[in-house]
């Protein structure tokens, strides 16, 4: 059981599992051309060794680099669960080849948590009840964070449009919109 009160974890904390990069496949043959490269993820240079070049950025983050926060729910860029920032642009990491992300600066949901605490966006999601099953939430957090950084005074309609590529099946979006308003309010209060 986790030390965190009331939080059940499944096997172990996958984010601290460094063994993922050692995963053995594939063997070097003509059907699986391999590549070795570095990815810059959340300020760290992470090596990817002998990986099949067909792997998506999402797959490499999740299965090779121990960063499973970004989720896969559709593998065709429709649901937004895999949203990450690539050189500051919001992308669906399922639709980016990992080997194409070399030289890019990547930020995932794991990189949005400052100093072990929650960011204001993350805290607002918790406090407004925006989280139910939570599967869409990492992508939502990345998308809402990106919107508020680019467009701090976005209207609710602009916000709904901005996250319309992020599907949530549990909440009906009402509490997610409320979380957005909370962050805007808090940031406005902090400036005042």
């Amino acid at each position, binding site marked *: 059981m986790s030390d965190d009160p009331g*939080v059940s974890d499944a096997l172990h904390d996958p984010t601290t599992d460094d063994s993922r990069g050692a995963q053995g496949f594939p063997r070097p043959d003509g059907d699986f051309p391999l590549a070795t490269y570095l990815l810059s993820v959340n300020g760290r240079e992470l090596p990817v060794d002998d990986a099949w070049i067909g792997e998506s950025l999402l797959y490499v983050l999740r299965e090779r680099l121990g960063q499973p926060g970004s989720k896969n729910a*559709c593998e065709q860029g429709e*649901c937004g669960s895999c949203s990450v920032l690539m050189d500051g642009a919001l992308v669906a990491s399922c639709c980016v080849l990992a080997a194409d992300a070399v030289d890019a600066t990547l930020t995932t949901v794991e990189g949005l948590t400052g100093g072990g605490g929650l960011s204001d966006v993350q805290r607002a999601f918790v406090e407004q*009840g925006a*989280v139910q099953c*939570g599967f869409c939430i990492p992508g939502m*957090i990345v998308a809402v964070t990106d919107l508020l950084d680019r467009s701090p005074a976005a209207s609710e309609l602009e916000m709904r449009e901005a996250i319309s590529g992020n599907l949530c099946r549990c909440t009906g979006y009402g509490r997610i919109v409320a979380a957005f308003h909370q962050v805007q309010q808090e940031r406005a209060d902090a400036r005042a």
Partner: protein
Amino acid sequence: MPAPSQPATFTRRRRPPGLGESVLRPDAPPKVTGEFAFSSDLHLDNMVWGKTVRSPHPAARIVSIDIGPALAMPGVHAVVTQDDLWGSRTYGLEHHDQPVFAHDVVRFHGEPIAAVAADHPELAARACAAITIEYDVLEPLVDAERAITAPPIHPDGNVFRHITLRHGDPEATGDVVVEGTYEVGMQDQAFLGPESGLAVPSEDGGVELYVATQWLHVDRDQIAACLNLPREKVRLSLAGTGGAFGGREDLSMQIHACLLALVTGRPVKMVYSREESFFGHVHRHPARIWFRHHARRDGTLVNVESRMVFDGGAYASSSTAVIANATCFAAGPYRVPNAKIDGWAVRTNNPPCGAMRGFGAVQTSFAAEAQMDKLAAALDMDPLELRLRNALRTHDQLLTGQVIIGVAPVEECIRACAELPMPPAAEPDADLMTLPGGAGRTALPHNVRRGVGFAVGFKNLAFSEGFDDYSSARVRLELGADGEPVAIVHVATAEVGQGFVTLAQQIARAELGVGTVLLHPADTQVGSAGSTSASRQTMVSGGAVQMACAGVREVVLERAALDLHLAPADMVLGDGEVTTKDGTSRVSLAEALRAGPVEAYREFHHAPTEPLDENGQGNAHWSFAFAAHRAVVDVDEELGLVRVVQMATAQDVGKALNPLAVTGQIEGGIAQGLGLAVMEEIVVADGRIRNPSFTDYLLPTPLDMPPVVQTWIEQPERGVPYGAKGVGEPPTISSTGAIVAAIRAATGRPLTRIPVRPDDIAL
């Protein structure tokens, strides 16, 4: 409660808030940081990847299967088919009629035939493609009505269940009669977290499975039977579950992954793709429903006649219970003295259907509420007035003859919903994005018409028809490392997003007066909690936790009373201490626990129910929940485009134990009702799913989903823990009907089929 889309404010308090307060989810912080491990996030060093081979045909004989080329591929560790199963070759929730792997006959598009384990998911996919299967393709049986009399496509026949419901004088006639035939398309649960899990072979020859599911114990029993293992050698733990909505009540990858783990001796991870997910779980039954309503001239309902056919697809799943709900609640929450209803759930070569939020009540509610509007028009009566005149109350009879003894605030729901504020009128210079169809220069403001619609729905809570529906809880109170009391709650309740983890903590805090409540991971090392479905966990697992806490409290009071030379009856357990009722003496909880931890294990069984008799009569249900919905829509009639402007609802919740969680359940449930009304349908042609992706199966986005105005009717239900009713399903039952009624009001079109398509409006 919070206003739509506006942030709630929370008072910071020293003591953790208890029942009836908007307590925050304990799993929300790890979910917002990405740390929370979902079933697709699991990893072990030497694991291999499993993948399923599926039939491209909805009906075929399998002539031969050649797994050789796949097995020969380097990095492929196993290929399994039915020949490798050493236990039961079939499984199922109620009837074991579904093969783990199709062997001689394929009965639906996407039916599993084999599974492979390989070093890499791409290699597993290529291995699946390398398996050669020769088929003798058959003509699929795809017409549900024809299935009733068609030659059987399964040894168990084509009719899963035919319910004949006869109530009062089934031939009674009224002064005014309205008739209609309605259709419901196939909806998908579309939970975002795909079917997935990790199976690990254990040293005793058994298997451990970490999986996203709705009911650990019923999964375990089916896996154990198919692998011919004793139940205790099949250990399941709940992995992070990315939504469910009924779609995880049946097995998907569970047996395949466990079998591959036993065959390879290695951990096996399986994660469905979205496309595979559409083939890999049951859907909401498509239905064709005929109704004839009879009423007196004053609007009093006299008789409701109905014949309905629900397409269950290839295998039984929970079809027999779905059709029972569809018939039992067919007429909606109204007093109907006479009824003549025939409901069939049948087998076809279409995709299997089973549980989805609302479970049978959704389909008939859409049709019956359309009938109520039609009847109101025929009577020249206000549709709300007609509903109020016939609204069910406590002590009224259902169509099944059962007398409602619990709370039934139908009238209150209708009135409260009607009183909720309307949205502002459409503005001529409104943002283009708010027009039907969005900003793509499609709808023109002067073509847009506004409509308002209303619908009311209800269904049973928890399981019915004589099922012994229960949940188990073990609660332990002990001193933590810091010397402070800690409660540990162990339940097998599947947390799928609904928030039982929060409620379990609230209950334990309230019952035991402790600040720290830890939840043991849900697994099969404790008794069954039953399914996370039928809106039942707040009531049934909530009841089990409450009872186990009461058992612990009893022992704590005895200990304290012994210390003070008093009787336990003189003592109360309060906030971290036991006091005498007059407050003169006290023992701290920590003191009482110094003699050792206190543990109690209890089961909550809801009041017994009866099977339906041959006329569909009987006290088959335990408790009921009601809701009214109002929809405001804008429609561009020429383009057939709809934008839902506002949803309003009043829901019978008994007692809201966590207002924030109730708010979220209602908003989320309405979003799924909106989807069924105007966009969501699995398109099946000749037995084949044509749109198994989120590109082609459309889900409501934040731009499709309007603000929800909600209010609750809080009348505590007796015999239910804290008087709280389950809240998950009512939002999904009549929200669909309200939206379609609003589109009818805007367009004058009959709209007898959901989802409503543009050409239903524009052509």
